[in-house]
């Protein structure tokens, strides 16, 4: 310990007396530390309810607290709710709330606040996105006492408890909701460890320590207000610029580190690498089952055999990620290890599958009834990684004589092509914490049914999965669901979804909410 710091500590102790002795005496933390984070994506809105972006989650996680805390391995812990009970029929959830919590604007938190939040989320004028789907069929909340709130579900909905811990269901101040209306996204007011200071679109978001914070989740290992006084999230979408900023010390933390730098920086002892697993379906490509030629099961299976996932990751992202081999990500409930070996990389088998399916090779390319096997791979043009993944996939498909063209599209055009079913396959990500996330992709009528696949048996299984309360039975249902998805080859799993976070060695205590939402409430930054 340097003399200067010791001096400062003594002064603090003298000035603030016994209180400071209790807080500062444990370790010499820099209570004035200002943290700069290189953030990879622009912010659409700071309203947890109306945002649709996965990358918003970590920002929200630091401003808002949810009713429960979800540990990285999906254990549900008390946060704003201290305890809960679930009724026999699985349709009623009753939460007992903490009584000492205040929002950043001073409004006390109670059962009525929760009710106001749920009303806001379910209001037709709100245009809620992720938050609404996380509630599932449980769209009504009533305050049965000042600090007791009851959620009612139309049908039994097992995923609710864990999903209430996701930052998109963070509690907002009812006063702020009423006061700011449509502009709530510019005035985020939660109960979290950090409070909103300012936001410059496409530049930065500044948060400051919530001095009153005393309701920390138990497992993060920190009590009271955060050690860090101020966080600036600087929005730097250009990966190279983000790396330069971090490397030169202008930021002490960066997310979405490009694969090549991830490998290089890990060898340096100045930095700490924190891979944050983002659960859900990983990075994958839905395969369009309604359009030629991928409406042919043989073609879909051949694609699975033809693409070397490890090779794709090596080419597109410097091998920084493990491959994804099943519909659900490892560490999730319902992950089925037995599916991992279903489609090994085997070009010869890909060709044999096509031959068995009635395809013939002519001039190096496959064709059937005079029509050439030609795939249309689309990718969001503004993304750094999807066009690269598309190119790598295309390379492997061409090697077995499957013609593949790439079309890079701006997001609106890309969405339209997915909904209309113009593409054969397209790399993307989908985030979720419950295996039920799959139902959004493979049930007819769902927005994300971009593989345009309809199997009544699968649809029935999804309904069973939502209703089943017995964890073991539920697990079996999702194993069966994934088996069908892989048998039908309507999605091509590519790589695991991981936020590659790099921090300076001086920054410690960075953790995350289950599902992959970085949380800085327990972090400290040394001088």
């Amino acid at each position: 310990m340097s003399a200067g710091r010791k001096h400062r500590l003594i002064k603090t102790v003298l000035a603030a007396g016994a209180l400071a002795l209790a807080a500062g005496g444990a370790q010499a933390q820099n209570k004035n530390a200002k943290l700069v984070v290189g953030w990879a994506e622009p912010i659409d809105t700071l309203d947890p309810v109306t945002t649709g972006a996965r990358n918003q989650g970590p920002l929200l996680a630091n401003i808002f607290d949810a009713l429960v805390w979800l540990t990285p391995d999906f254990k549900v812990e008390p946060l704003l709710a201290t305890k809960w009970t679930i009724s026999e029929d699985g349709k009623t959830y009753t939460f007992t709330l903490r009584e000492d919590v205040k929002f950043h604007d001073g409004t006390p938190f109670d059962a009525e606040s929760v009710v106001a939040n749920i009303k806001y989320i379910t209001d037709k004028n709100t245009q809620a996105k992720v938050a609404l789907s996380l509630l599932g069929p449980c769209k009504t909340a009533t305050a049965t006492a000042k600090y007791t709130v009851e959620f009612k579900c139309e049908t039994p909905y097992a995923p609710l408890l864990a999903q209430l811990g996701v930052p998109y269901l963070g509690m907002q101040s009812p006063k702020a909701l009423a006061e700011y209306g449509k502009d709530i996204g510019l005035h985020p007011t939660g109960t979290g460890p950090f409070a909103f200071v300012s936001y410059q679109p496409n530049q930065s978001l500044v948060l400051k320590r919530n001095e009153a914070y005393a309701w920390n989740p138990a497992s993060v290992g920190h009590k009271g207000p955060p050690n860090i006084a101020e966080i600036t999230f600087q929005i730097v979408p250009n990966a190279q610029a983000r790396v330069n900023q971090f490397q030169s010390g202008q930021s002490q933390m960066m997310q979405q580190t490009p694969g090549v730098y991830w490998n290089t920086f890990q060898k340096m002892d100045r930095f700490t690498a924190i891979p944050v697993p983002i659960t859900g379906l990983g990075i994958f490509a839905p395969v369009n089952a309604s359009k030629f030629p991928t409406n042919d099961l043989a073609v879909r299976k051949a694609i699975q055999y033809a693409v070397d996932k490890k090779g794709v990751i090596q080419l597109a992202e410097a091998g920084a990620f493990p491959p994804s081999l099943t519909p659900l990500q490892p560490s999730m409930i319902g992950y089925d290890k037995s599916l991992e070996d279903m489609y090994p990389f085997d070009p010869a088998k890909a060709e044999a599958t096509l031959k068995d399916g009635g395809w013939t090779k002519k001039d190096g390319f496959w064709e059937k009834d005079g029509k050439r096997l030609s795939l249309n791979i689309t990718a969001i043009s503004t993304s750094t990684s999807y066009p690269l993944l598309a190119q790598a996939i295309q390379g492997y498909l061409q090697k077995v004589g499957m013609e593949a063209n790439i079309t890079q599209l701006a997001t609106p055009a890309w969405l339209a092509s997915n909904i209309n079913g113009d593409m054969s396959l397209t790399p993307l990500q989908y985030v979720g914490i419950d295996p039920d996330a799959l139902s959004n992709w493979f049930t007819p009528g769902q927005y994300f049914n971009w593989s345009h696949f309809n199997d009544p048996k699968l649809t029935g299984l999804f309904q069973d999965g939502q209703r089943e309360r017995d964890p073991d039975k539920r697990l079996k249902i999702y194993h069966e669901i994934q088996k069908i998805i892989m048998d039908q080859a309507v999605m091509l799993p590519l790589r695991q979804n991981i936020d590659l976070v790099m921090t300076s060695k001086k920054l410690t205590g960075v953790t995350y909410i289950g599902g992959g939402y970085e949380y800085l409430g327990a972090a400290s930054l040394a001088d």
Partner: protein
Amino acid sequence: MSDITSPATAAEIAGTARPAWSRRKAVLRALRHRSLSLGLVLFILLVLAAFSAPWLTSFDPTAQEPMATFTPPGGVHLMGTDAFGRDLFARVLFGARTTILASISVVVLGAIVGTVLGLVAGYFGGTLGFSIMRLIDLLLAFPGILLALTVTTILGPGLTNGVIAIAAILVPIFARLVEGATAEVRNLPYVEAATAAGASSARIIFKHILPNVMSGVIVLTTTWLGIAALWITALGFIGLGVQPPRPELGAILNDGQNYIMLAWWITVFPGLFLSLFVISVNLIGDGLRDELDPTLNRL
């Protein structure tokens, strides 16, 4: 160019036909023009390199090689390899071919459409000319790259659509120039003479007026060729031009931007090629302007 005017009388009235000795002198003078000859030499070298790509390298510009990613320049891979292990020398040459062909198509397309519109508007004037020119003004009011982005959004990404999009930026520029020049020329005595001799409008426009506005069009074509090349690469850079894995200079630059600190060669070589190409075209453009029409300095 100007000596292709057919009825000798009309041409001589305007004093545009040049005897053979004067033409030879013009060529000699042009070659003495240092920037013009330097630009020409550079241009010919680059274009030759790009178009003889299949003979200069045996590498397939799209062949991925997982074991040879980010190989530095030298050895088998003259300019190194990119993130996909593709040979950069092959990619730059084949990419340059695409870029050069596309930019030439852009200016030729833009020049033809713009010139025809300008000739029609300038010669006929009246309501027709007025409506054409207001439409041109409308197009001119758009910032160039925004217009190109709008067109690619409507037509979808791809090289052909990119060429159309950027040609759309050039059309109003050519149309403006040609319309002005045509309006000036159409009242000259030799046009009146042709009209009196009973020539049709089409004949007058293409045989008498066009040759006299051509020098301006040629200068403008060379001036804008470099800019067209930059715009084509810009579209490629943002992913709306040539679709991968086909190489194109802008797309290669984009591939390189994420690795610039680790693999500078992916960015530097295509960047160098593009810069040299644009410089050569600009040198030629400047030289031609000096030689063909000193009054066009304002362009």
